[in-house]
């Protein structure tokens, strides 16, 4: 979030006051815990609210360093020669969008700056509208020179879940005779060298539900020997690790994964320094909320042990 000059001091004051309130409040609860007192559920809710709202109103940003799993995705896109074809599948709904759409945006940005052709599609009915957001906010705004149907193509949503993948592994046209603009498959220059998923260089599935990453690995990645990478919500990430690193070359998990990717992109491409980076922006609320949760876990254990000792006595 950008604040004009005079507001900067106000933001700093607001941020400091909020942090003092959170810190002071937690200290008070800690002292209460030393007496063996439990914390009411509503107090926890209040602290989480302040911890999440403060960095949204008064932004707190942190530096990020890409972990191996995220770096693997970045390096793969970076190493592909210009003109390679990448599928980005929007397999998520609006509920998951705040967590995974920043990944989709960052990966789209990276592919376009490297000169790759992108095939956008979705296995979720609501994914097509979310795809439109990325096209509008990233592709059309930041890359006005990129032409639809030439540098990228929007195939949209197709019903059928894994059935769709089962067909496009051998014949794309059978499932997508036209793109969303009703342009016939054969008249789309971006698809000139693509007759099936086996012809693409990388598949990136963004999502976490079903159909999604798992189906891409089982129905396309493995049988077609196509590299698959993914970006998923944090709660889904543990289920994806069994596929890493052989069936999934890398994965972005939750907002942290998005922030790491954005950070890596900004570090290597300074032209993206001023673009919106929701991943990095949202790390403030996430960090503060996690710290509050960690403190509550400590407080909970402290009061638990003190109570246990009192009961023994």
């Amino acid at each position, binding site marked *: 979030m950008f604040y004009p000059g005079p507001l900067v001091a106000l933001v700093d004051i607001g941020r400091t006051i909020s942090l003092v309130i959170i810190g002071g409040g937690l200290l008070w609860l800690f002292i209460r815990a030393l007496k063996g007192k439990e914390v009411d559920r509503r107090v926890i809710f209040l602290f989480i609210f302040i911890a999440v709202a403060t960095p949204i109103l008064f932004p707190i940003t942190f530096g990020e*360093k890409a972990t191996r799993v995220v770096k693997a995705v970045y390096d793969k896109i970076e190493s592909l020669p210009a003109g390679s074809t990448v599928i980005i599948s929007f397999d998520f709904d*609006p509920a998951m969008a705040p967590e995974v759409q920043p990944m989709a945006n960052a990966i789209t940005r990276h592919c376009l700056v490297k000169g790759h052709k992108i095939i956008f599609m979705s296995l979720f009915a609501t994914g097509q509208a979310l795809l*439109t957001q990325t096209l509008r906010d990233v592709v059309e705004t930041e890359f006005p020179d990129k032409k639809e149907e030439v540098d990228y193509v929007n195939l949209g949503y*197709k019903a*059928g879940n894994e059935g769709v993948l089962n067909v496009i592994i051998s014949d794309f046209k059978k499932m997508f005779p036209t793109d969303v*603009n009703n342009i016939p498959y054969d008249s789309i220059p971006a698809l000139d060298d693509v007759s099936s998923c086996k012809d693409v260089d990388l598949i990136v599935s963004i999502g976490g539900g079903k159909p999604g990453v798992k189906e891409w690995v089982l129905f396309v990645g493995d049988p077609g020997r196509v590299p698959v990478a993914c970006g998923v919500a944090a709660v889904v990430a543990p289920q994806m690790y069994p596929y890493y690193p052989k069936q999934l070359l890398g994965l972005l998990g939750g907002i942290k994964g998005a922030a790491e990717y954005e950070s890596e992109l900004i570090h290597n491409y300074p032209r993206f320094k001023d673009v919106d980076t929701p991943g990095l922006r949202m790390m403030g609320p996430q960090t503060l909320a996690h710290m509050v949760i960690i403190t*509550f*876990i400590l407080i909970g254990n402290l009061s638990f042990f003190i109570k246990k000792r009192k009961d023994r006595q």
Partner: protein
Amino acid sequence: MRREVPLFITFFIGMLLIFSVFIPPMESLGEDFTVFFDIIAVFAFFLGGGNLLRVHVSKLTRQKRDWQYSIVTLLGFAVTLVIGLFKIGNPGGIAAAPTAAGSLFQEIFDYCLVPLGATMYSLLAFFVASASYRAFRAKNREATILLIAAFIILLGRTPFGTVVTGWIPESFDVLQVPNLAVWIMNAPNLAGQRAIMIGIGLGVVSMSLRVILGIERTYLGEDKS
């Protein structure tokens, strides 16, 4: 006959699709059946819409508890459907995609559905915090292991983890909290997840065989005859 015919169809199609995977000349057959399936899958939308109407109209007419919300649901459904179907307010006209940038359908999606979905999902933060406070207690050995793992994962998901352990040299970087969090995901979590997945896989194979061979017949429903 009411039982035998569906059982025969299931057996025949099931065997055909199994063979289509292993016999190359039959591969296209499997693909064609998938396309048939995809066409049938589209009808699920009609069923879904029909069911939504049935449930909420009945709730409204019988004035069941919270019937007022059904008005909002039905109105939202009708308005979105009409705008999407007839491309009302779509700059590209009737030939454009319903989700074309700037279309009314997309605006409804952007400014109603997206914030509502995100709000529902974000409520998780409050419940997770409350549940963590109550559940992560070192009551016994297993709970302590869970607590330590949760602690590392929580810390590893924040830049604070990098700050605290950033001083650890590159050669021992696995000990840095974010990498430790990745290790927990990549070793103990992976082992557990794979065991579950293999179990599910074997279950799916045996269940599929039971259906194809006609041993499992619950999908046919109750035979009233």
